[in-house]
């Protein structure tokens, strides 16, 4: 459990080979493809309410949480049973992105319509609080120490950094229309994919300042971190922009399927996995050699927006 929590954001711990599972939200077919990344096969397809986009695996790996904005549903999947265990339907709003607190106690869900974050008690699966953020919050992430919550406030061109102990909010301007946001394993930086300016913005969370900006292909969606590099999915360009996280230089531009979207790093930090929304596939790429390891067909319209991988 500790290992999972530490490596969840793409850390570089030495770890034994792990069997990773991808939980891919298919927005058009309204289900979740469960993908065995070692066997390179879909082992289950789980129907869920609505048209799911956001996804977050709990750090303990017992549950994966799925968000459907149209039906306002949070769906809990039991990872052992590979079945829906509980659901929560919100009264209003448009839940979009989701993150689970590192201690596993709470779920944080952005509301695309009402500039807020829903705070949900995981044990009760009940809405307990709301946090004000900027307009059209989409991507969301929590630092590994559980102290800070970061949202990409898309239509305000900013991130909100919430101190979860005090509730205070700081705002940092990014490129235009940040969508995905990723926090590094050290909890020091956030990386936003800025749809409007075709950039990744790198933010120091302690100082609340922008420390770098990287040009990407057209319409970046989200960022994963692995092997000292960042990987941004460029939806329109059909590429992955790879950049060095120290120099912020672009190292390589990789081909992807059509409309690459959600992206995450495997628990061993060696591979990245992303969904191709139009192609209905996920691709697995070696983060060091950039070799395409696997191409796996999933359901219709995969978005995988969030931390969609678990490791056994």
């Amino acid at each position, binding site marked *: 459990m500790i290992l999972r929590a530490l490596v969840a954001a793409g850390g570089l711990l030495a770890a034994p080979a792990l069997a990773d599972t991808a939980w891919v939200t298919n*927005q*058009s077919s309204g289900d979740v493809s469960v993908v065995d990344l070692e066997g390179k096969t879909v082992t289950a397809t789980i129907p869920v309410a609505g*048209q799911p986009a956001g996804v977050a695996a709990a750090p303990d790996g017992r549950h994966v949480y799925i968000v459907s*904005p*149209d039906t306002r549903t949070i769906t809990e999947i039991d990872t052992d049973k590979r079945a829906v265990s509980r659901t929560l339907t919100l009264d209003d709003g448009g839940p979009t992105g989701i993150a689970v607190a590192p201690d596993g106690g709470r779920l944080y869900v952005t509301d695309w319509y009402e500039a807020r974050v829903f705070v949900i008690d995981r044990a009760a699966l009940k809405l307990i609080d709301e946090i004000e953020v900027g307009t059209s919050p989409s991507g969301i992430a929590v630092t590994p120490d559980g102290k800070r919550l970061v949202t990409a406030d898309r*239509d305000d061109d900013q991130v909100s950094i919430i101190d979860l102990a005090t509730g205070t909010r700081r705002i940092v301007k990014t490129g235009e*229309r940040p969508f995905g946001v990723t926090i590094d394993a050290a909890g020091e930086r956030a990386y936003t994919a800025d749809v409007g300016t075709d950039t990744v913005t790198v933010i120091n969370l302690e100082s609340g300042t922008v420390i770098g900006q990287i040009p990407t292909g*057209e319409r970046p969606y989200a960022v994963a971190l692995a092997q000292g590099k960042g990987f941004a999915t460029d939806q329109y360009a059909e590429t992955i922009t790879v950049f060095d996280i120290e120099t912020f230089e672009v190292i390589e531009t990789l081909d992807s399927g059509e*409309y690459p979207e959600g992206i995450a790093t495997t628990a061993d930090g060696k591979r990245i996995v992303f969904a191709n929304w*139009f192609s209905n596939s996920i691709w697995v790429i070696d983060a060091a050699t950039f070799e395409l390891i696997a191409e796996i067909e999933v359901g219709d319209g995969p978005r995988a927006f969030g931390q969609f991988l678990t490791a056994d």
Partner: protein
Amino acid sequence: MKLWTLALGFAVIAAPMVAEAHGPTRQKITITQEVAAPPDEVWARVGDFQDMSWHPAVHSTTGENGNEIDATRVLTLGEEGGPTIAEVLYKYRREKRSYSYRITAVEVDVLPVTNYSSHVTVKDGADGGSLVEWKGAFYRGYPNNDPPEHLNDEAAIKAVTGVYEAGLEALAAEFAETQ
């Protein structure tokens, strides 16, 4: 024949739009059409971003920078002075007979979509003919939950499907006449 919607038999509606906001679920469609002509000939007809005269709803095409990346065009629909759609080219692969473009400005009463991108590809078809593929990705016209009927997901899919089918059927008919 003033609007895409009129030209294709849909009701005319009017609604204000926020240009960049969009609904929660992006839609996609793929329409293919067999054309009885060699792929290079069909590509010569549809492969010029500055000439969409192959589509019956397009009155004129004006634009800049040919088939370069970031080239622009404005389609005037129906007749002179008709409604317009502004588009930009973001991918052009002559060797694959394929290009991609997106709409930069359109009213939702002309086409009830937002954040629209599109891809045209001429593939090798059967018996030396062509298979033309037209793909679109877009959000519905209404960005929030509970959209009115004329701006919901179904309306967006129906409208884009109608545009693609009308264009591809006309293209097939044009080549059928010349063969």
